[in-house]
């Protein structure tokens, strides 16, 4: 029998109650107010008092309101039908909610994540008598473009044997599809979905592998200079207006993965809407099907209850791990982890914990590390490979990276894409700063060539800085040309126009070719009469690279443009005037 309680105090979304019975840390409880059940999570227990953070607005809660504990942790429903959906941080399907309740999200109203009456084409992949472990394959269901694996529920411990499994056919989510016998003789009825507590990592694979396979995002500066690996982690900190969200949107569109999970955590609602409205009409670069079919959106936007922000990132990562267990490459984009950290700070403040730096709780670092550690490339027990890549944005206060969330994140991620205000002010998009960013992963461009370009950018920047002090006239023409080369590579390769149909995404093949074409220019020795003619030469050449970037490939125009650039380069600038 689950515990009961009575409300004793209310401080924002923190409700203190006196309980009788046994209460578990992090268990879910409901406060009954004005005939509604407000969902909350136990976050501290002291004597006969339990404190719950309520996932909804606490207006109107009074002393003496009853509290019902459930004995269960906050869990996500895992099963077919998750793809293409829009959930809030507690996995309520927002489209269903809108159909039932209109423009607003009323409190105290929960609906199942997956519609129990939805039916799916099930094909069994096991036989009676088979010995199975949590995560083993029971059958398959086609879900959009993927083969959704129906697995032994993760919460079953030990070796179970299949008593029976239903034949192929259409089954509703609430219908049984088979039965298992447990190690202690207990029986478990199988359905197409099951629940798993979101704060526990799903680890029912064979082994975790090193992230050494590049993940192609089709963003040139990322793939070319600061690559991301399948199963790796990366973070994008940047001041507001530097283009974090646009970069995340581009990545969610063009990244070459099987499933994309967007966790909109404490950010603007309209950004989610953009995705919801645009994705159904866009095509997945890999399969040609609607992008929405590979996407799940978990959205707890900034005006939605703060406590559910935390659950939104955990729900998102749990769904990611679930699809990874099917041998898929999953990309989780969390925007923004700072809002989650702020939710922790608000909670910590209400609990009157001793504050750490900038009033963030002392356990912030370990929470962030624990979250990113759930990424990884794994070998499944079936031999297949799956990966979960996590990319998180960070919104540092004042755009200053010397703050707790950025610092804690940088400790645990494998790539750092630093967005800078200077670059976005100069409309150099994506505004990833090539001098500050780094990546530990191997990308599609061999490391030696990648470093070559990074060094050029560094040198060009030094010359640029020097030029500010000694002036153009005090700079040698050789240095000036190196400076122009750096600026050229920045403008013609690293910058990409997200709103140009062609330039927005560059596939691997094209990137390799474009990188080589830029290298050809950079390795070329040029001789110019004076700096002005050098500047004009590079301006004209840059213009031709620009046009080429916006030309469809393969096409005659593209090939012609590329050849003409190569031929021009051969001349080495001597006849630059008639370029």
């Amino acid at each position, binding site marked *: 029998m689950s515990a009961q309680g009575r409300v004793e*105090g209310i401080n924002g979304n923190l409700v203190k109650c006196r309980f009788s019975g046994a209460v578990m840390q992090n268990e879910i409880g409901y406060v009954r107010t004005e005939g509604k059940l407000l969902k909350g999570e136990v976050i501290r227990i002291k004597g006969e008092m339990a404190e719950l953070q309520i996932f909804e607005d606490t207006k*109107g809660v009074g*002393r003496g309101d009853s509290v019902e504990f459930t004995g269960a942790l906050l869990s996500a429903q895992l099963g077919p039908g998750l793809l293409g959906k829009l959930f809030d941080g507690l996995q309520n399907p927002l489209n269903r909610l809108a159909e039932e309740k209109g423009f607003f999200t009323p409190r105290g109203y929960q609906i199942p994540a997956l519609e129990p009456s939805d039916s799916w084409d099930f094909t069994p992949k096991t036989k009676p008598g088979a010995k199975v472990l949590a995560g083993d394959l029971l059958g398959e269901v086609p879900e959009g473009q993927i083969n959704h694996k129906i697995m032994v529920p993760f919460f079953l411990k030990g070796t179970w044997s299949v008593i029976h499994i239903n034949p192929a056919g259409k089954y509703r989510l609430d219908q049984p599809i088979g039965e298992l016998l447990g190690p202690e003789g207990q029986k478990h009825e199988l359905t197409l979905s099951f629940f798993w507590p979101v704060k526990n990592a799903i680890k029912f694979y064979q082994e975790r592998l090193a992230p050494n396979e590049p993940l192609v995002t089709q963003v040139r500066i990322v793939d070319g200079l600061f690559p991301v690996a399948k199963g790796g982690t990366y973070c994008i900190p940047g001041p507001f207006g530097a283009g974090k969200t646009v970069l995340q949107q581009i990545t969610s569109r063009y990244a070459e993965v099987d499933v994309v999970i967007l966790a909109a955590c404490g950010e603007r609602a*309209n950004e989610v809407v953009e995705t*919801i409205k645009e994705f159904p009409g866009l095509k997945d670069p890999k399969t040609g099907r609607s992008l929405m079919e590979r996407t799940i959106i978990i959205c707890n936007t900034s*005006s939605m209850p703060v406590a559910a922000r935390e659950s939104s990132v955990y729900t998102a990562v749990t769904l990611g791990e679930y699809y990874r267990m099917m041998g898929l490459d999953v990309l989780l984009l969390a925007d923004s982890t700072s809002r989650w950290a702020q939710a922790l700070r608000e909670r910590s403040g209400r609990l009157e914990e001793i504050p750490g730096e900038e009033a963030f709780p002392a356990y912030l670092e370990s929470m962030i590390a624990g979250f990113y550690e759930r990424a990884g490339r794994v070998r499944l027990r079936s031999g297949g490979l799956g990966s979960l890549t996590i990319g998180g944005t960070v919104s540092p206060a004042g755009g200053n990276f010397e703050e707790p969330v950025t610092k804690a994140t940088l400790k645990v991620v494998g790539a750092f894409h630093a967005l800078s205000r200077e670059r976005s002010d100069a409309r150099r998009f994506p505004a990833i700063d090539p001098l500050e960013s780094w990546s530990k992963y191997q990308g599609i461009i061999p490391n030696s060539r990648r470093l070559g370009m990074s060094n050029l950018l560094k040198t060009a920047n030094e010359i640029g800085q020097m030029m500010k002090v000694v002036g*153009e006239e005090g700079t040698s023409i050789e240095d000036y040309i190196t400076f122009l080369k750096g600026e050229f590579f920045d403008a013609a390769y690293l910058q990409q126009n997200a*709103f140009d149909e062609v330039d927005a995404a560059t596939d691997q093949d094209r990137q390799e070719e474009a990188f080589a074409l830029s290298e050809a220019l950079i390795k070329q020795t040029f001789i110019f009469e004076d700096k002005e003619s050098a500047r004009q030469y590079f301006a004209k050449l840059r*213009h031709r690279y620009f046009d080429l970037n916006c030309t469809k490939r393969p096409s005659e125009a593209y090939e012609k443009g590329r050849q003409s650039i190569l031929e021009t380069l051969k001349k080495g600038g001597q006849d630059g005037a008639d370029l």
Partner: protein
Amino acid sequence: MERIYNHILQIAGNVIMVEAEGPKFAELAEVESAHGKSLAEVIRIDGEKVYLQVFGGTAGVATNDRLQFLGHQMQVPFSGALLGRIFDGKGEPRDSGPGLKDHLIETAGPCINPATRVMPSKMIRTGIPMIDVFNSLVEAQKISIFSGSGEPHNQLLARIALQAEVDVIVLGCMGVLYDDYLFFKEELESSDAINRAVLFVHTAADPVVESLKVPDLALAVAEKFAIEGKRVLTLLTDMTNFADALKEIAIVMEQVPSNRGYPGDLYTQLAQRYEKAADFEGAGSLTLLSVTTMPAGDVTHPVPDNTGYITEGQYYLAGGRIEPFGSLSRLKQLVNKETRSDHRGLMDALIQLYAAFKEALEKRAMGFKMSPWDQKLLKYGDLFEAKLMNLEVNITLEEALDQSWAILAECFEPEETRLKTELIETYWPKAGHHGST
């Protein structure tokens, strides 16, 4: 049940505490002291102890003053009769009109389900090139004017309000100078816009805490109009004063401050208000334009900083002009595709060149020789500032785009502009001398 208490146990800052049974979180109460009545709101319950923030301030409140719980949360009357009226921060008339007590609606209501939102898609034309060309204002957008002190932010706000084609204007003032209040009132009255406007005004002379409810009152009314199909423009000035009131209460409540004394939930508090901006499918829309003054002109101050992360852009007002750097409208991409084919390309090219102009200025200031390219940039920058940035300029978007091409042609060769060849062929003024490619 009579819920009257005569024993106030604690008075600290603008927060009082009584021991009471039964009050609900966020419930309102009325405090009656020798200096008059004031509303108060329950902000914390701890066992029998109930803490209330007193909107009228606690000056003159005595321990034996009468406190009555009202049994409801903050409400605001809603009807067409609101139009043309002026209220204070408690929702009481500030003009000579009658008090409204009917059709009370909840303030700070539930948040909008993201699934029901539609993407904003209509541009609001302002006649200001720095907005229309570079950072178009969009219906249902939430955007703030970042401004230093002494800047004409309220003038800009009023100008946009009067020029925008909307059905209802809701103005919320927090801690504004009395002169500014009169300015808004006169501007609205002189153009007849007052008949489609509702004002909630809290001036610098009123008790600080009273400003806390202004955004909620204004937004509740605006939202209701929008649901009824009206296109509503909500103006909130100045959100920094609102944040300062939050800070005051947080410190009295002994909350751990996060950054420069502001409470840790500042972001959430601001976001909950700004996120009321929305385009309702099949109904109206709520556009939210606010003013955020930056103390000491510092954009990294917690209030503008948090606001920047919440709003869909900001207009950065400095030196009486909207600065192209720092200003941003995130929704411009939704509307500037359909305006004219050169709009986007031109916008980027103009800014990149203006950035280069700024660098040239720096070089010149350090005494370096200006190269021919620098000379071109200097000429360009001057024209750009005079013909586009100047807030006196009041021209349509199309006129502003034509103006831009003329400026470019006067200063540069076509390929120096980084514009796509296609655009240059269509729009480059033919009369000007044409470079060779």
